[in-house]
């Protein structure tokens, strides 16, 4: 068994991590921190853990050494204290955006301020197992992934080299905004919303360009809808040369046949022919489907994942499994609920 600590465990990703790690057969979550909730039982903040976890939040200053630290802090905080955290654990997985990008220049370009610890950027592996599995094996430090970026990267990666451009619409649930209330999360504003809040220039574009490259012109807009968990992606992709439906099946099978958490969902029958967020809620799956238009030059790619699952905590646990040499799927096999 390994001892794991969660730093910043009162947020939604911290709660999701606790839920996943609690049922991981080789993990013992021994400490979870929160400045505001120190002393309280975790179930007072994460009520699904009532009767399951007896942990109490501790103040970050009380953190002890452990085998693995998960950092679930607001963007910018992990980078400011990374030297300290590195003294506490040999393996660190940071779920914030602090260590996702390759260079300080890219970080400053997208996040608007200099990186607090630029010397650490090169030490972190971008935590998307489907792309960096080999690098993650045995690595000491991994970053989290942007949830919207993950949907785009997984959905379009098999099409690199074939695409001229892609226009992507992403519909997201309210939990993407975290657990701190703001004007936009106020119930009369958020309830029933279909509100496009970032038509261009989303920060996750940095991760998309890092993974897909800049040869493909990608544009994506993000729209908040009436949903708590989940991301639904619709990508209109335009090929250089016409493709058939069978060509697409061949490409996606080649890319994802052996991926344990990617499912191809392009059904010809039934109600659920294409990916839907609620089917993957609470899981580590990313479902991907497609349909080629009659002219063969335009394909609509559809994807769905749980922003707190595959888009955050699930991928982080998958990374930990790879980094420590565990079975990659350990603790992540919950299939979701239906209906």
């Amino acid at each position, binding site marked *: 068994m390994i001892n794991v600590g969660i730093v910043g465990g009162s947020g939604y990703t911290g709660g999701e991590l606790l839920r996943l790690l609690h049922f991981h057969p080789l993990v013992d979550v021994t400490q979870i921190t929160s400045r505001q909730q120190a002393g309280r039982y975790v179930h007072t903040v994460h009520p699904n853990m009532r009767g399951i976890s007896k942990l109490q939040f501790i103040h970050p200053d009380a953190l002890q050494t452990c085998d693995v630290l998960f950092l679930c802090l607001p963007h910018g905080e992990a980078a400011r204290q990374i030297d300290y955290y590195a003294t506490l654990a040999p393996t660190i997985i940071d779920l914030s955006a602090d260590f996702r990008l390759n260079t300080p220049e890219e970080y400053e370009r997208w996040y608007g301020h200099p990186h607090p610890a630029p010397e650490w950027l090169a030490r972190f592996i971008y935590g998307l197992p489907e792309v960096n599995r080999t690098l993650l094996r045995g690595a000491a430090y991994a970053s989290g992934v942007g949830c919207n970026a993950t949907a785009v990267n997984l959905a379009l990666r098999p099409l690199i080299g074939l695409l001229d451009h892609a226009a992507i619409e992403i519909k997201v649930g309210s939990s993407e905004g975290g657990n701190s209330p703001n004007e936009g999360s106020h119930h009369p504003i958020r309830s029933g919303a279909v509100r496009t809040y970032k038509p261009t220039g989303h920060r996750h574009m940095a991760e998309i360009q890092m993974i897909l490259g800049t040869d493909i012109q990608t544009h994506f807009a993000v729209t908040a809808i009436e949903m708590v968990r989940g991301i639904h992606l619709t990508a209109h992709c335009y090929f250089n040369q016409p493709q058939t*439906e*069978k060509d697409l*099946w*061949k490409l996606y*099978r080649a890319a994802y046949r052996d991926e344990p958490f990617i499912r*191809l969902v*392009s*059904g*010809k*029958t*039934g109600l659920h*022919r294409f990916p839907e967020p609620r089917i993957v809620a609470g899981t580590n799956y990313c479902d991907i489907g497609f349909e080629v238009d009659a002219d063969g030059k335009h394909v609509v790619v559809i994807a769905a994942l749980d922003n707190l699952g595959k888009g955050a905590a699930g991928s982080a646990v998958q990374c930990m499994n790879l980094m420590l040499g565990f079975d990659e799927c350990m603790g992540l096999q919950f299939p979701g609920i239906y209906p």
Partner: protein
Amino acid sequence: MCPECDAELNIPADAMENEIIACPDCGAELEIISLNPLQLELAPEVEEDWGE
């Protein structure tokens, strides 16, 4: 092979002509038109009725 998505199909040894089998990947329902040689076609589907 599935005529829709090229997935490999497992045709039961005791399959009969006109039997409907499903593709494990794309879910297409396929009718066995002939067994020798094997010939599959998309099974006719009841169209959804969206109203008036």
